[in-house]
């Protein structure tokens, strides 16, 4: 019913235009409505019944992210924080994080994996190469970061390397700090989509598929719980794109 009302507003003259109508990609817009509000009328927000709906269908690649929302809510306000982004660098993430006054640190973990072990993971790494990789890719002081964005890289890490990386991530995250990781949640397939995650705002992500790769490891709920067992609190969110977001608190 709510969805129909929103479409009614979009199609009525003088209201918001869709992507197709305007001919260009627009930023996601939020509209606050009351469930009791009659369709087609001007929204009159009633605080007791206010519901926030993100019109993410205007741009298919954009969707609300509960995980992102939870992570940013957990960050202390008014402080300069250190944020580690383990995805491919992009303007959106740098702009948003530095715009909040934080320091953005970038380390493209997938590129580092490809460089260390060959594209696609290659053979299982021996102890010496694994140690060298960790020292080069995640050589940060303990307790250094307030937030870590792992995105969907962990699925491509050779299984024998995953525990060492998780230990390292736990060590470099400050007590009280948070981590966000994303996992493919669809049916088992030979390859999984790899995404570029762009922060649009504190609760919206733009997800762009950039590649398909065979996963080094697929995680179910139980294996995810084991993976993050060292963290103080863990929350799971399933998105409409068959992605599972995991937010952990150290």
């Amino acid at each position, binding site marked *: 019913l709510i969805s129909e009302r929103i479409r009614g507003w979009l199609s009525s003259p003088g209201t918001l235009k869709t992507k197709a109508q305007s001919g260009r990609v627009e930023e996601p817009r939020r509209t606050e409505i009351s469930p009791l509000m009659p369709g087609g009328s001007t929204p009159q927000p009633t605080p007791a019944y206010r519901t926030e709906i993100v019109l993410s269908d205007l741009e298919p690649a954009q969707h609300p992210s509960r995980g992102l929302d939870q992570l940013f809510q957990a960050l202390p306000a008014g402080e300069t924080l250190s944020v580690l982004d383990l995805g491919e660098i992009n303007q959106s993430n740098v702009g948003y994080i530095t715009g909040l*006054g934080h*320091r953005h640190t970038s380390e493209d973990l997938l590129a580092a994996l490809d460089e260390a072990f060959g594209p696609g993971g290659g053979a299982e790494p021996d102890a010496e190469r694994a140690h060298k990789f960790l020292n080069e890719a995640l050589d940060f002081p303990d307790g250094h970061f307030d937030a870590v964005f792992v995105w969907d890289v962990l699925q491509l890490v050779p299984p024998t390397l995953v525990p060492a990386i998780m230990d390292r991530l736990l060590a470099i995250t400050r007590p009280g700090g948070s981590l966000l990781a994303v996992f493919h949640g669809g049916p088992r397939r030979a390859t999984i989509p790899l995404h570029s995650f762009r922060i649009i705002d504190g609760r919206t992500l733009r997800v762009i598929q950039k590649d398909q790769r065979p996963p080094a490891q697929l995680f179910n709920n139980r294996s995810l719980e084991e993976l993050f067992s060292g963290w103080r609190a863990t929350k799971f969110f399933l998105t409409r794109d068959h992605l599972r977001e995991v937010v952990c608190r150290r």
Partner: protein
Amino acid sequence: MWNRRKEDETAPKGAAFATEAELAKDGIPITPLPARTDSGGTRGALIGKAVVVKGDIASREDLVVDGEVEGTIDMPDSRLTIGATGRVKASIKARELIVVGTIHGNVEVLDKTEIRKEAKLVGDIRTVRITIEDGAYFKGSIDIIRGDAKAQGGKQGGQPQPAVAGAETKGH
């Protein structure tokens, strides 16, 4: 004779040469020296593809690096462009920085930093503004120098302080 010789001695040396405007008035064609430009059409000094510089560079004019530089680059009033073939292993201070090639080192930019899609930059950046194209490789931290900190830094002899805590340096 004496008077004439004295006039010759006191005449300014440059006066013997006609200016471009005077020559043009007489119908003499003038071909100006070609401007030094990089592939992007930027004017300034150029370190060519086959040039290797080891040491400290200080410049008050724009500089394009298409070769190799190892040391430091200090040009707080000018624009530095690292061309596609440029490879720099240096700490850099510049007013404006455009990276198409490779930089290993910490960077301080007093205005705008542009990292193009082919670029590779390993080091920490302190800058006022930054644009990063998709496909660029960057490893390090980015601190944005705030306006108030920049103004304060200007009073302290052109050493802008970041609004955030001092930039950490990652092992590289």
